């Protein structure tokens, strides 16, 4: 069966520090991978979307970046965090077909102080 791992679960970082969040999927190959962010009490904002290794679509201009070095690995990074980067970050995958549900990781709660 397929599983998705996302870590860490919580993170407190000072403004200006770097960020690296990692997500891996097991039990499937060539998944579509997503990074969403949810600010407190708000909706799910799509940040990045990938259909294959090295293929990243950035949805919102900001100081974050994403990489997909391996088929089932998706990394979210920042060189310098801003206060506004605080939120709940969710990695997700699906099979890229119209009838494939999105499977979410447990999320990372990031607080920038």
């Amino acid at each position, binding site marked *: 069966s397929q599983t998705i791992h996302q870590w860490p679960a919580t993170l407190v970082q000072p403004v200006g520090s770097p960020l690296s969040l990692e997500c891996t999927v097991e039990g499937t190959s060539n998944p579509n991978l997503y990074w969403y962010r949810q600010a407190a009490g*708000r909706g*799910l904002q*799509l940040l990045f979307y990938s259909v294959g290794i090295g293929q990243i679509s950035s949805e919102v201009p900001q100081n974050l970046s994403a990489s997909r070095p391996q088929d089932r690995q998706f990394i979210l990074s920042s060189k310098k965090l801003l206060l506004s980067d605080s939120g709940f970050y969710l990695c997700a995958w699906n099979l890229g077909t119209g*009838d494939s549900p999105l*499977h979410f990781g447990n999320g990372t709660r990031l607080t920038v102080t």
Partner: protein
Amino acid sequence: QQPVQSPQAVILREGEDAVINCSSSKALYSVHWYRQKHGEAPVFLMILLKGGEQKGHDKISASFNEKKQQSSLYLTASQLSYSGTYFCGSLYNQGGKLIFGQGTELSVKP
């Protein structure tokens, strides 16, 4: 293009019914519905493909009106466990990215 959900919030008594609507200004390939409990990741409920489909899942069902580019989620005889934020997700083409609406917060009181 983010789909628009209505209402933004709804409060129910246990056993009451609710309808949550999701509208798109662009032609949809499919609509997804998810529920998120506070502090947790969203959980998949159902997908509706174009073609006017209806689906059911216990006392939660949904419909998709392809002509109007609208989907509705129906919760009947609500239970306390139905509380949470409901999101619809729009897929505009097969293999495309899923864009979520702003969410509808549902509270079921005893």
